């Protein structure tokens, strides 16, 4: 039954595809572009400093005819400096002692040089319909620092605009009328139709506001670091989001209620506002609540920490406030100050950023990070304070 449903889905996509492919013109030349990104990280923790460098090369390939686009990007990462880390070193002694001796091996990680295809997709479209197959970028939600609706990406709140890896699926976008569209996504996994991801999303523009409702069924995975591997269960997400303007301020929000097959249901939402002053000063504020996080920092355990770092849970605590202040110091230099504050345990992370467009196609980015919290808190100083210098040379 499940395989029959999967078959029908693919037949359906095939029919849509054939309609789109028929009017395809000759493919244009392959466009090759991308960037080279050397990065230097210096980290101070518990009286010691650590260095890690990385070089990243991203090569984008893109070819498009009148209504067919092929895209792929190849990423090559090289690591230098301190490449071997024990994750447990970043946690309090109490947490470290929770991990059985036999399990400690799993917490040793090594940054290995990698070469992989991040996005590989073909997109066929006419004026009303677009069909995308393959590993592709799927970005949902209106939040800047975090997106409760977006289970495909896990934003680093300290560096929220950094690109994310692609997600495999077959996607259909249908433009119903001006500012009204439907998105369907099928993301097949080994288990067949029942276990595969199925998404429906309707987006509507009303006045100066955009609204969207999202329904997504997929397999949710939570690793148990006390007794690997963990649990899998069906998760049904119902999401609502909006973005617009209220009293002259930008105003947005997104919320998701998650119906879980076996564990407790939970909700997550984010509200945000922003404003640009006459001087060019830009201020953004967001509040994020995640019921899956914990309200008391004394209750954080190794599962909470690692699920957060692996992206299985969006936050470690329940309530967070994000703030960003940005100012164009010159036409080429932009100054930013990002801050994350855990309402539950009072800890915070402060990230000053300098963005400098040093040459026509070269960006220089300097980021600091300071964690203010005490032992065991969400943003505790044991996580290490330091800075990142990142250059990006585009070609």
């Amino acid at each position, binding site marked *: 039954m499940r395989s029959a449903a999967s078959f029908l889905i693919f037949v359906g996509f095939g029919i849509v595809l054939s309609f789109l492919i028929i009017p395809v013109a000759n493919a244009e030349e392959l466009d090759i572009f991308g960037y080279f990104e050397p990065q230097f990280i210096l980290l101070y923790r518990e009286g010691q400093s650590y260095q890690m460098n990385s070089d990243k090369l991203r090569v984008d390939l893109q070819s498009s005819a009148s209504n067919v686009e092929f895209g792929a990007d190849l990423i090559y990462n090289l690591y230098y400096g301190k490449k071997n880390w024990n994750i447990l070193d970043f946690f309090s002694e109490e947490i470290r002692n929770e991990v059985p001796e036999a399990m400690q091996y799993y917490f040793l990680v090594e940054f290995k040089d990698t070469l992989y295809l991040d996005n590989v997709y073909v997109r066929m*479209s006419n004026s009303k319909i677009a069909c995308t197959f393959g590993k592709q970028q799927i970005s949902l939600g209106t939040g800047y620092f975090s997106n409760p609706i977006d289970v495909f990406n896990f934003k680093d709140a300290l560096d929220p605009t950094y690109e994310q890896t692609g997600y495999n699926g077959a996607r259909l976008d249908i433009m119903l009328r001006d500012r009204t569209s439907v998105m369907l996504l099928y993301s097949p996994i080994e288990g067949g139709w029942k276990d595969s991801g199925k998404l429906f999303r309707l987006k509507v523009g009303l006045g100066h506001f955009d609204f969207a409702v999202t329904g997504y069924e997929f397999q949710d995975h939570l690793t148990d670091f006390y007794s690997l591997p963990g649990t899998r269960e069906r998760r049904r997400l119902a999401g609502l989001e909006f973005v617009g303007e209220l009293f002259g301020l930008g105003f947005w929000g997104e919320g998701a209620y998650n119906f879980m097959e076996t564990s407790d249901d939970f909700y997550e939402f984010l509200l945000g506002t922003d404003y640009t002053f006459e001087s060019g000063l830009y201020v953004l504020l967001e509040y994020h609540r995640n019921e899956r996080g914990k309200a008391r920092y004394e209750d954080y355990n190794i599962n909470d920490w690692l699920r957060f770092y692996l992206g299985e849970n969006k936050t470690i605590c329940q309530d967070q406030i994000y703030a960003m202040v940005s100012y164009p110091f010159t036409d080429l230099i932009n100054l930013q100050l990002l801050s994350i504050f855990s309402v539950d345990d009072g800890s915070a992370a402060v990230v000053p950023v300098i963005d400098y467009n040093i040459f026509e196609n070269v960006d220089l980015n300097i980021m600091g990070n300071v964690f203010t919290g005490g032992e065991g808190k969400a943003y505790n100083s044991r996580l290490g304070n330091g800075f990142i210098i990142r250059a990006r040379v585009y070609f």
Partner: protein
Amino acid sequence: MLLEKFIKYDGLGEDLTTKPFNYLTAFVRKLYGGGNMLRKVLLFFVLVVCSGLIAEETEEKITAEEIIMTMTETLNPEQSEAVMEMTMITSGGQERTFVYKAYSKNKGEKSLMKYLEPGRVKNQTVLMLNNADDIWTYFPKTKRVRKLATHAKRQKVQGSDFSYEDLGSSNEFIDDYNSVLLGEEEKNGKLCYKLELAKKEDSDVGYSHLVVWVEKDAYVPLVIDYYHEKDPELLEKELVLSDLKVIDNIPTPMKMVMYNKLDNTTTSMGFRELTYDVNLPDDLFTEMGMKK
């Protein structure tokens, strides 16, 4: 002055002030009453003098609103497709050049900009609807679309001296400002109407007032001075338009230079390609159109 005398001579009343041709017909009737040669010679000279006066009177009657309306229509043809080059020069003398495709429809009410160069902004797209009251930006690396609020109209486009408001709002001269005709003045070697546009109370534009010099023949602005929102005496930016060419029967300034008087920076924009003879689909000005 002379017309007033004609009115008194004819005793026709004040309503003629709004109908210049009536002065002439009334005066001709008066002169032709007798029919001798002297009267006919006199009539000839009067006609010559009057025709000049009437032409002058007709031109004076054009209102500031009419000039702004005509100028806005000239600047915003029904549709356009262009490849534009924008070069900014910083106060330190560094240059940054951007090339983008620009589409507009419904006399500029809808517009879309897609960056072609440099690599760091390649395929980034900006969609502006309702005369830039609604702005969306699309980032190709993350395939994320972000809606900007109205206040973001003040933000600089790619650090240039043009704001979204400067680029995307096609009807701002009509909707956001009250205009007054200050007179005629020569500017950059051309005879121009000089107008002052004061910000309307309910408008959210980022300038207190503008002074605009509109070329009399083509109804194209040659210079626009933008004054600071908080300090109306302070000249913030000056836009100079030049290289007037007729493209698809529409007079078009091919080059625009914005001088930022406060930051001492300059941004120039020019057309690499331009056509008004296009039929752009509405679907281009949608989220799907941004991603294409």
